[in-house]
């Protein structure tokens, strides 16, 4: 398929997914309400720590801005196809996509973009209220260049996370049930993403590992680019690592997917 044809197919699938998503408006509203609870809660805990006299390497303004923006950054970089890809493989529902001219990943990309668009409509006002509530402490003094860097980092973060979830999903070719892998990955990222504890608050002895591990490059690095005064060397190293993880995981996911297709037996097909 040409690029033009691919984009046309994805656009059609996007429209279908928008319609499907709108049928569950209340459901998505509740999801988004839940997704903003964690950053609010984390911010309150860290603010309580600060008012108890704790000496943190960052100030209230950094923490507040970080947590206010983190829910939006998490949404932009989110992906969830690892939840249904294994069952699609196991139940043979992948077969129908194998006889079509387009890849199943057209549908996955369209679903990802459509749900994000609707979720953004619900989340943005909630973040706006959160922002307004702490407006005195939400400060973003970044140059245009930093904003461009932030946007680029988010896009690379989205590619990295999409590829990682695809990689987890491909486990379905070999295992009957990939939920345990998904659960375990979920537990690891609960800490290493920086969603509850900003990664800059990890102890000094752990900073080397924390800065190098891939989960940092989903959205925490992008927020650091925007909010922290990072040295040129830190920025360059971060950009290289992020691009490396995004491309590396994308290639690994593709390789595993093609290997998996060879062993696919389409029990339900």
């Amino acid at each position, binding site marked *: 398929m040409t690029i033009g044809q691919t984009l046309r197919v994805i656009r059609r699938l996007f429209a279908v997914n928008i319609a499907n998503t709108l049928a569950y408006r209340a459901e998505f509203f509740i999801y988004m309400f839940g997704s903003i609870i964690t950053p609010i809660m984390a911010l309150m805990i860290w603010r309580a720590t600060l008012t108890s006299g704790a000496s943190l390497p960052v100030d209230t303004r950094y923490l507040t801005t970080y947590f206010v923006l983190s829910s939006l950054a998490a949404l932009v970089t989110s992906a969830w196809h690892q939840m249904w890809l294994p069952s699609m493989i196991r139940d043979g529902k992948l077969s129908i996509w194998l006889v079509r001219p387009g890849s199943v990943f057209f549908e996955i990309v369209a679903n990802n973009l459509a749900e994000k668009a609707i979720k953004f409509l619900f989340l943005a006002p909630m973040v706006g209220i959160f922002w307004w509530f702490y407006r005195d402490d939400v400060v973003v003094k970044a140059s245009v260049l930093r904003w461009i860097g932030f946007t680029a980092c988010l896009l690379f973060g989205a590619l990295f996370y999409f590829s990682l979830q695809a990689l987890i999903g491909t486990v379905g070719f070999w295992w009957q049930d990939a939920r345990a892998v998904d659960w375990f990955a979920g537990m690891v990222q609960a*800490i290493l993403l920086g969603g509850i504890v900003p990664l800059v608050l990890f102890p000094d002895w752990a900073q080397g590992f924390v800065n190098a591990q891939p989960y940092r490059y989903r959205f925490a690095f992008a927020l650091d680019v925007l909010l922290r005064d990072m040295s040129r060397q830190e920025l360059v190293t971060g950009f290289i690592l992020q691009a490396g993880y995004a491309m590396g995981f994308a290639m690994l996911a593709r390789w595993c997917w093609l290997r998996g297709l060879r062993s696919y037996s389409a029990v339900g097909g």
Partner: protein
Amino acid sequence: MDTPETRASRRPPLDPTIVHRLRRHGRLWKRFFVMAIAREIQYRANAISIILVGIAFIIVSILPVLLLFQFAGEVNGWNQDEVIALVGLFQVMTGIMETFIRPNMTRFTALVSEGDLDPVLLRPISSQFYVTFRWMSPASLFYVIAGAALLVIGLHRAGIQPSPVEILLATVIATCGMILLVCAWSALVYIVFWTISVASIAQLFDDLWTAGGYPVVFFPTPLRLFLTFVFPVAFATTIPVDLLTGRGHWWQPLLAVAVTVVVAGLIRMWWRYAIRSYASASS
């Protein structure tokens, strides 16, 4: 004219008294549990993965606490060891919910939307009891054991030796807290009688439940009140640990019992009202 006798009219009532009714439901609950264990033994890999996830969950719960207290000796009157004890109790409560409640709550949407509630309503058993306690995941009891160990370690490190009375009162409050949380979750999932799906409710519950891993005094007053009276995690974790550490008050268990009785009654009424809207999708 005399009403003709039927086989049904000659039979004695199934439960002459409320005590008989409770006993019969207790026996049924035991049967459900035995069946759940048999199922767990059949799917051993699943049980092992639940235990591994349980270990990861404990690390995930305790790590933020350790990271937080590297910067402060005390936060709003709580030290690190007391918060570790609280995380332990949080794990115990999570384990009980995962074992006995979540498997039922996550099935509830399908019960209503696919008409599977029909046979439940025909059974000679409380339908609310059935939909709340039928399914169990005994492997998740690992959380309870690990959480209890963490609770004891936290209290020991904090140098706290609660008296038997304090332990009893903390247990009463924690039990009330657990019942209140089940009521809160039930109240939310019963909305499915009017909507298509409430799958996101479980996610929302998880997001709110995370707050139980921290003392409610860490949060501002409005949120503290919310976590005590609207989504009552305080009764399940903070207040019991408060009692164990000698910070509690004598009236707290009384308040917890009174609130629990009222809320349980309201949930019973809410169920009876909601079930009237059930249209049986399969018929």
